[in-house]
């Protein structure tokens, strides 16, 4: 094994880790604010990416404006999920399992919708900074991947500041942790949950826009992204966006280094076996119990 190969594996693992983390961050946001495991987080990414593509191609919008459109539609999708499904189910006293089933069903529905409106083709978006690659030591990194890492880090920092330094963020956390207590202090719990889904949908759409230049996007990619993002979020403690980032990086690096150290056919076996070991040793995730409850 050469040093160049190891360096490349690390860079690739970090890149993929950020891809998983972006989905995991959205999952963590929604779980943090609603205690709902959102199995359709990957579909928010698909929606955000495809809307951006069509805004550029069909509506001839400039790229930045198309991204805004994609993120806005992602956020709006979150609103619709809350208003049309979550709110009525909450009123009827639905259980956590029911909400999980809901989001699984919606995941398939949104995937079908993406197929109907977007077709079967895969779509690419222009990479930030173009299609070039950076040469770092003996490895290469697409320029866009560097931007993805910066953007994902900015999202995590932004969310941390939002949840810890703003009244709205604190209110959203409180509404999820203790709805009755929050209500008694005048917090509109229903509105906070809706904003959670707005934020989760928006973060999901941002993830879609950021990953599409690297992996392309089509109607059936949402579920695969959700699974990886879910692993990242669980590793990180499920309520902590920062934890999802670390979880994603851990997963990406495990996969990549498994290919280097073992025959590539065993990649998933090795990576997921190590994940199991991590969860046994650290059942509250990489950031522990404090990270699980923090913001």
């Amino acid at each position: 094994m050469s040093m160049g190969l190891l360096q490349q594996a690390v860079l690739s693992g970090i890149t993929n880790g950020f891809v998983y983390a972006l989905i995991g961050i959205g999952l963590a946001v929604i779980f943090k604010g609603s205690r709902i495991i959102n199995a359709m987080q990957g579909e928010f990414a698909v929606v955000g990416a495809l809307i951006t593509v069509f805004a550029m191609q069909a509506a001839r919008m400039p790229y930045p404006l198309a991204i805004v459109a994609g993120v806005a539609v992602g956020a709006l999708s979150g609103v619709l999920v809350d208003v049309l499904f979550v709110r009525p189910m909450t009123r009827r006293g639905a259980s956590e399992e029911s909400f999980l089933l809901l989001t699984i069903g919606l995941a398939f529905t949104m995937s079908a919708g993406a197929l109907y409106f977007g077709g079967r083709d895969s779509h690419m978006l222009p990479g930030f900074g173009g299609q070039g690659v950076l040469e770092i030591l003996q490895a290469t990194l697409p320029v866009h991947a560097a931007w993805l890492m910066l953007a994902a880090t900015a999202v995590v920092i932004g969310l941390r500041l939002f949840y810890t330094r703003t009244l709205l963020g604190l209110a959203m956390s409180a509404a999820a942790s203790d709805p009755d207590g929050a209500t008694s202090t005048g917090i509109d719990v229903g509105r906070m949950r809706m904003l959670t889904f707005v934020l989760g949908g928006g973060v999901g759409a941002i993830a879609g826009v950021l990953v599409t230049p690297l992996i392309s996007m089509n109607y059936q990619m949402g579920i695969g992204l959700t699974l990886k993002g879910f692993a990242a979020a669980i590793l990180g403690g499920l309520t902590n966006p920062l934890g999802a980032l670390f979880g994603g990086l851990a997963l990406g690096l495990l996969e990549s280094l498994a290919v280097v150290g073992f025959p590539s056919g065993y990649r998933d076996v090795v990576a997921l076996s190590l994940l199991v070991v991590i969860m046994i040793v650290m059942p509250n995730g990489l950031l522990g119990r404090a990270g699980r409850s923090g913001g």
Partner: protein
Amino acid sequence: MSTISKRTALATAVSALALAGMAHAQSKAEPYRIGALLSVTGGLAVAGQPEREGVLLAQKVINARGGINGKLLDIQLEDDGSNPDSAVSKANALLHTQKVIAIIGPSAIAQTVAIGGTTQSLKVPLLAFTGLGPPVERERTCVMHMTPSQELNARAMLSYARDKGYKKVGVLHDSGYGQVIWNSMKTLGGEYGIDFAQVEKYELSTNDATTQAAKVKAASPDAVLVLGTSPAPFRNIRQLKMTQPVIATHASSTYENVKAMGEGADNIIHAEFLVAEDPLPQQKEFVEAFQKEYGKLPKNFAAAGWDSVMVLAAALKDVGPTPTGDKLCAAVRRVHQGAMTRFDFTQPDMGGFTIGGYTYSKLSAGRYSRLDYKAGGAAK
């Protein structure tokens, strides 16, 4: 005759005339009912969708010309969802409920093997979009193969590599389709004088194979063989700034993949059959009709779909308006110059693919061009 008797007689005559007219109209309009069992959804839709387009186009063209023997083609489409179990139940429905006289498809070898026994025993021709598979298929002389075997695909790629002087190659293959080709290819290295310097596998549905490609790069091959249908490894090879030519199979040669490859759609050689940008004379009719109908250029799977219907049409023309299973099976086993290639269904593999039947293309900056290369010639 009483009034009632007159009325009865008149009513009976009118009814008889009406029934006779209906029977006549029905017998005149009775089409050839053919089943098409394709993977239009699921993981194999990348093949099933264009096959469907080719099949429907051929049906339209034939019916526009008045059909065959005065009868139109009525193709009953079913989707097996890329699932062999579903293929079995859908095939049974086509055979026993729809009473089709032939079945076009399926799109994958597992499905073909699953239903081939049934169609063979009923002497219903099956024109499968798969190459010859396990040994049992050699006994199924009513199952035709519209695409080459994976061993022949492997030989087509290795022939090009050998003739271009690539002695040391790296291989990237997926865990599904690519694994099957690799299983054939790995025993052929010595015959073609090629050393497989590094072989790496990636998951069928992967979005990234960068590390696997990096391992191949580290072996400094003369060329890279990519065995799979995903665009991911092609992107990753370019992201790693690998300059070696990439040689791939026809299965990855689709315009959808080219889009998804991005800047990776460059310096790729495909061992395929149809380069619609520069079609061979026997392919022009199909390419023009396809472009007119769908507003896009076709590739290999669509050509196979078109050819399957044309083969059946030619067989039906010979057999006549009331084909029986035995006669139709025998009539399908013929030589047929198709848009995809020259088929010879009289051969033991029920397909007659030869290495000389491949057309090689080069994908440069997202555009295909036909190469002036034929496999099977002297080493260059």
